[in-house]
């Protein structure tokens, strides 16, 4: 862990493209959007790192098509699912061999476990849960911006000396890169060295969740805040969500009070969503919450306080009592929908 080894030339931007059951997931494509922008500013190459087993050629080429200049896949049966020790050992070995200056991963259950483990092992700086990444013009340092202190403020963080500069990025905080035709790049497949694959954790079973529509996958999200006042009133907002064909979200306040369950929570400590339409009902728009939905394409807010912060990011605001507004809006939406069918 001496700094000497860190001072050798580091170059290039890397992203971790996570796979599940051998298929590259959406987060890798989102990170390509981030990584491409950084690599272009630095006029350097973008590499996608994949750890897994038997990844199809099409999925690796898909990373090239979406902006990577190079894909490095390290494979072994022991890498099929995330286990911290083999993943960390393989990542550290690759970073030592190729020496990128920047490594970004998703702030997923995998990224948020792997990255801090690796950062300690290689003595690198790591910033969690970034919502913005940029390059500082004078120094070419990575500027990592994230909500801090319960989301009341944003902090910009950098890693002046240690390399690589590492960051995790909130899933769904940017759009996945689209494939472009005619892109070409290098695909390197490596067998993982067996001595890196020992693990004191074994995965013995997996139970897939059988949840309702995920708020992260929905095109329209309707979210209730503390303004609904009590658990029974979730139903009022749920009816509006149903009329819009939307998934139902909740603020941290609502989840902490037990009015809705954690999978519904939008915000810094919940999920980040980027739907086409976000309807905020009875929530003031704490920065904590905005960190989880501020990049929605269109935002409509309903709140009785004309100065509520949520109106600063909404395109359309209804100022009044949600208990009067929402039922009428729901009825009118149902009428309008039935007219068009």
């Amino acid at each position, binding site marked *: 862990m001496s700094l000497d080894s860190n001072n050798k030339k580091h170059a290039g931007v890397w992203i971790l493209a996570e796979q599940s059951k051998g298929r590259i997931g959406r987060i890798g494509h989102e990170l390509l959007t981030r990584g491409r922008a950084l690599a272009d500013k630095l006029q350097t190459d973008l590499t996608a790192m994949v750890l897994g087993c038997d990844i199809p050629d099409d999925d690796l080429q898909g990373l090239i098509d979406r902006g990577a200049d190079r894909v490095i896949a390290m494979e072994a049966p022991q890498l099929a699912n995330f286990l911290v020790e083999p993943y960390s050992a393989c990542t550290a070995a690759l970073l030592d061999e190729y020496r990128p200056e920047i490594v970004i991963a998703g702030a997923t259950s995998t990224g948020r*476990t792997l990255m801090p483990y690796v950062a300690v092992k290689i003595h690198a*700086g790591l910033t969690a849960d970034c919502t913005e990444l940029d390059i500082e013009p004078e120094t070419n340092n990575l500027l990592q911006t994230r909500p801090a202190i319960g989301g009341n403020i944003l902090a*910009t*963080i950098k890693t002046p000396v240690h390399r690589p500069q590492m960051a995790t990025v909130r899933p769904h905080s940017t759009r996945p890169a689209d494939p472009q035709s005619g892109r070409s790049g290098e695909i390197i497949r490596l067998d993982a060295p067996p001595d890196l694959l020992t693990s004191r954790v074994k995965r013995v079973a997996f139970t897939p969740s059988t949840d309702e529509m995920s708020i992260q996958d929905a095109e329209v999200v309707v979210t209730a805040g503390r303004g609904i006042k009590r658990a029974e009133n979730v139903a009022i907002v749920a009816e509006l969500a149903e009329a819009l064909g939307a998934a139902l979200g909740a603020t941290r306040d609502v989840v902490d009070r037990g009015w809705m369950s954690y999978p519904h929570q939008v915000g810094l400590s919940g999920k980040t969503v980027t739907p086409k339409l976000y309807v905020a009902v009875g929530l003031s728009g704490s920065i904590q919450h905005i960190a989880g939905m*501020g990049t929605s394409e269109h935002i409509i807010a309903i709140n009785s306080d004309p100065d509520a912060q949520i109106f600063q990011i909404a395109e359309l605001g209804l*100022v009044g009592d949600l208990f009067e507004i929402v039922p009428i809006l729901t009825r*009118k939406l149902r009428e309008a929908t039935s007219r068009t069918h």
Partner: protein
Amino acid sequence: MRIVVPIKQVPETSAVKMDSETGTMVRDGVEAIVNPLDLYAIEVALELRDARGDDSEVIALTMGPPAARKAVGEAISMGANSGVLVSDKALAGADTWSTSYVLAAAIRKIGDFDLIVCGERATDGDTGQVGPGIAAFLDLPVATYISKIQCDDRSCLLDRLVEDGCEQLEMEIPGVVTVVKAIASPRLPTLGGKQRARRTDIPVWGAADLDVDSENLGLSGSPTRVVKIFRPQVARECEKLPAGDEDAIETAADGVIEFLTNKEFM
């Protein structure tokens, strides 16, 4: 079984105010509490200890200013057997790398541990990086987002919540787990517990008491630097429709439908 629970004292988040002149945090008069998510780690550690019915121990550990002694006291008043405060001016300003480094050194000094149980993250920093960081410094396995745990003398059977479901893991001990809220319901401190906390000697360890390299401590030993703190600019042009009475609401609702039609949602 010896279980170490690293905890953090945090400002009661909702009480944090910003000084609009200087853009800095106003800490005066803000109550400090045990990180609410650490209470779940303390609780599950106590339950694991009590289920064994032997001489197992729970040891709370925190790093912070002298006032953070109160956080260790609260863990003891919930039922922890003992606690340690690591406090030294040289540690001020540590990022998650340096914090993990010091906590790992303190855990080595506590010694003879079987399990380290951490909360998912702290409500002020919100990184969740210190649990895995401690594991890496101690060269131990780590399992994060744990919602269920059963242990025997050699391993733990764990439920780990991930994006698309629940993994069941078997982890050798010693090892590190970080736990989510679903794992337990934290008990309240008892009166007897509070009295015990007052009587219990909580040792305070400085950097000199730990096997640490001074280059890795505090702000100067931290790879990351905060370069700017600011309030986000979040302005979009908002068309506000008054909806104070029924007529206004009808009109506003028509406005919403027109908006949705224009944007091709309907």
